[in-house]
């Protein structure tokens, strides 16, 4: 952490996006996390993605639970809405907010403790319901705020800083999200912004629950030999199935790739994800194959990263509930309480 606020001065050549903002305008307060924390890199990736997508900061709501990861919304998008909820309860608060105002862009930030332990149930149901949001799980395998005990995502056999091996089975949040019906599932690494930023952009463009598990090393408690969530381990075992470009309609596609090495996925809102396959047999639109691939490679000790699954016919909670297009919080009292006569009519239809 640093005591000083980041200087206001910025690079003279820093450019503004279509909204007239520079990347620095998407920053938040100075981070109080430990120096070298992967979470700070994820914050920087979110800042970069939002700047590139010309997002208006006041159209974003960032919600989090408790933990190191859940502190980070203070460190990006300083002009957006925020809600630091109860431990593990970010999904339900976010679902409520999303139901009340469907027009905002919802960003849920959570950690492995917040999502895989105390909030596991909430996590599962959010995915099932397909709440339209981006769920970023900052996964370091330890409880950093309480001095580095193993979390539920720590691999069996991985060693703690003191050298003690973990005996519990890990929860694989990516597989769980797939099982629970998430329509956009990705895994990335805090140390690889080249992969992470486009994934965040694609997730923001996705309609429905978009889940990103980001391995984010804890420098203080989980970056030693024997850890399976250290910078060195992830770099050595990273099995990236693809790199992607996220393309909005107005952009011209100029990159040229050899035939058969790319897959284009057009999402519901017209945005295009162009995947450059690193692994020739990987098809991210096939859910069963994806689950197989993830499991088989995980068994080999590899950390599979990239966009793992995307459903381009995805739906979301509002569509499933057939709610009106106008956000509920914008409806007038007249529309919300149409009067006794209408109530009588509804009651009569149900008798």
């Amino acid at each position, binding site marked *: 952490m640093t005591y*000083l606020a980041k200087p*206001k001065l910025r690079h003279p*050549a820093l450019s503004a996006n279509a909204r007239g903002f520079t990347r620095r305008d998407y920053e938040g307060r100075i981070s109080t996390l430990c120096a070298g924390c992967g979470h700070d890199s994820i914050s920087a990736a979110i800042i970069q993605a939002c700047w590139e997508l010309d997002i208006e900061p006041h159209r974003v709501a960032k919600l989090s639970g408790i933990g190191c990861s859940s502190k980070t919304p203070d460190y990006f998008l300083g002009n957006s809405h925020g809600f630091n909820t109860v431990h593990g309860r970010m999904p339900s608060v976010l679902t409520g907010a999303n139901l009340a105002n469907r027009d905002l862009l919802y960003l849920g930030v959570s950690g492995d403790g917040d999502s895989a332990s105390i909030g596991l149930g909430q996590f599962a149901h959010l995915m099932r319901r397909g709440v339209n949001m981006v769920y970023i799980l900052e996964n370091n395998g330890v409880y950093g705020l309480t001095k580095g005990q193993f979390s539920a995502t720590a691999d069996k056999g991985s060693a703690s800083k003191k050298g003690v091996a973990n005996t519990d089975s890990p929860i694989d949040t990516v597989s769980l999200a797939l099982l629970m019906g998430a329509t956009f599932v990705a895994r990335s690494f805090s140390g690889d912004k080249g992969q992470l930023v486009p994934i965040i952009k694609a997730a923001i463009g996705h309609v429905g629950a978009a889940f990103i598990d980001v391995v984010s090393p804890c420098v203080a408690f989980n970056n030693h030999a024997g850890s399976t969530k250290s910078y060195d381990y992830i770099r050595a075992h990273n099995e990236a199935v693809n790199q992607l470009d996220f393309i909005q309609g107005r952009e011209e596609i100029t990159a040229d790739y050899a035939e058969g090495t790319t897959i284009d996925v057009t999402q519901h809102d017209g945005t295009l994800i162009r995947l450059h396959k690193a692994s020739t047999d990987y098809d991210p639109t096939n859910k069963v194959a994806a689950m197989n691939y993830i499991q088989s490679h995980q068994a080999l000790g590899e950390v599979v990263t990239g966009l793992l699954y995307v459903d381009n016919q995805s739906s979301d909670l509002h569509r499933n509930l057939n709610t009106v297009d106008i956000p509920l919080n914008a409806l007038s009292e007249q529309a919300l309480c149409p009067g006794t006569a209408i109530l009588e009519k509804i009651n009569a239809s149900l008798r």
Partner: protein
Amino acid sequence: MHTTDIRNPDYFHKVVDCQWACPAHTPVPEYIRMIAAGRYADAYMVNWVSNVFPGILGRTCDRPCEPACRRGRVEEDNFAKPEPVAICRLKRVAADHKGDITARLPALASTKNGKRIACIGGGPASLTVARDLAPLGYHITVFDQDPKAGGFMRTQVPRFRLPEEVIDEEVGYIINQDVEFIGNRRIDSLKAVLNENYDAVFIGCGAPRGRDLEVPGRREAAGNIHIGIDWLSSVSFGHIEKVGKRVIVLGGGNTAMDCCRSARRLGGEDVKVIVRSGFEEMKASPWEKEDAQHEGIPILNYLVPKTFEHANGKLTGMTFEKVRAEYDAKGRRNLVSTGEPNVLYPCDEVLIAVGQENAFPWIERDLGLEFDNWGLPVLNEKTFQSTVPRVFFGGDSAFGPKNIIWAVAHGHEAAISIDKMLNGEPMTQRPPQHLNILSQKMGIHEWSYDNDISNDLRHVVPWAAAEKTLKSIKVEVELGFDAATALSESQRCLNCDIQTVFKAPLCIECDGCVDICPMDCITFTDNGEEPDVRKRLTAPATNQTQDLYVADGLKTNRIMVKDEDVCLHCGLCAERCPTGAWDMQKFLIEMTHAGPACRTPALRRDAA
């Protein structure tokens, strides 16, 4: 690209833009921090060691440091008017507030070494040679045509910019080092001086001849036409106390600015500066032009003098041809007549300040001392030695008119040459600089310097009231910063000498530094050729004059590239680094001056 060799002293020296740009390589950020800490005497001494005349330079320096200052680049596109740190005026603060520093000056040489050195001309170059060599035991004799030492600083810089006391004090520090000063002695023959068997002769006689302007009417109206530098020295000595009401100053350099502002104080009511070239191309420093305009002196450009108009032997005005600039294919400028009729500006007096020339009529041409086609002595550019081995040159007399700080730099180098020569050492072997690089880490997030970057804009130096300053040529115009303003201004300094030092083997490539850097200076990327790498950085490095700091040896085989251009030296990269791969280290580089330190170690041992 290859890993940057940070052991090469020039690498980090270049990052300290101000110090690199200063001919005498004054450690600017070092003394600015001292000023911030209220250590004015310490700040003064850091200056005194490097540039000899801090109080004088703090008022009159040409400030090569300021256009180089990183602050100006950093503020670009952030603030409406990017400005460098007011380095020069901070120097003056140190001089104004220092108190008595005589006890800190070098002790008088306890024993003389029996070697005699003559310095011809009592200006900054000669005085620097005297200051460097007198404490070593040399017997120095300085000759000057004027009664007091100081040269151009005393005779041509007007008193409203540089009070006499300041010159007396700083020249005094040198003369009091048992230096023999012989005033009122114009040297007419170098041969005669050489015949007196001095061990070395240093010539620092300046560029004493002001250029004239030969256009019709020059001779007829001679009584009202003056050469700028001669007129300024006459004013300085009190020989001239008045000027006509309407004055035209010809020329666009700093001498022209001194002339017009002096004229304004001696009764000139309608004073104007007229230049051939465009306003932007004028040689005068921008701030001197501003100062003149501030005093109500218009600067008219693109006017080529044609005739002096006169009646009954008195000047009545000047005519000028209107021109415009045209550039040929090679970018060379030509002034072309606009075809409009010539314009007449009525005036009572004209001051010609269109340049200075070297003149050595007193050097006999049969001494073996060679001159080049431009009438300048043939010198070794490093040693300042002429073709007569024991004769050295420095200041304006060496390579043509420059300024005080260059004269000081020449003086230091010539003093080293003389000292080495008289100790029987090869003078082409120049001494290495004195280097000190040390981590500034004091605690987990504490540094020995203030790394909180100030957003202040450049502070304006207060001026004395115009009705007072325009009445007398002796009232100093600038008042200098008070202590509070000096502190605020000093905080604008980015401490560029506190270097970001990177150790690749410690780096875990967590991106912490990349994410926190407010100026997007740091990138981890694949190696390549420099032009290609420059384009691929987080913020493309377009300023080719600034180096890239490259380190390889990372686990991912990428390279760390730091663009030095707009680094704030805020140290956040080092604060965010979990492994100490980044460290903030103070790089103090000091020039070696004449004395035992400038001699080669092997020879020093022999002597002992």
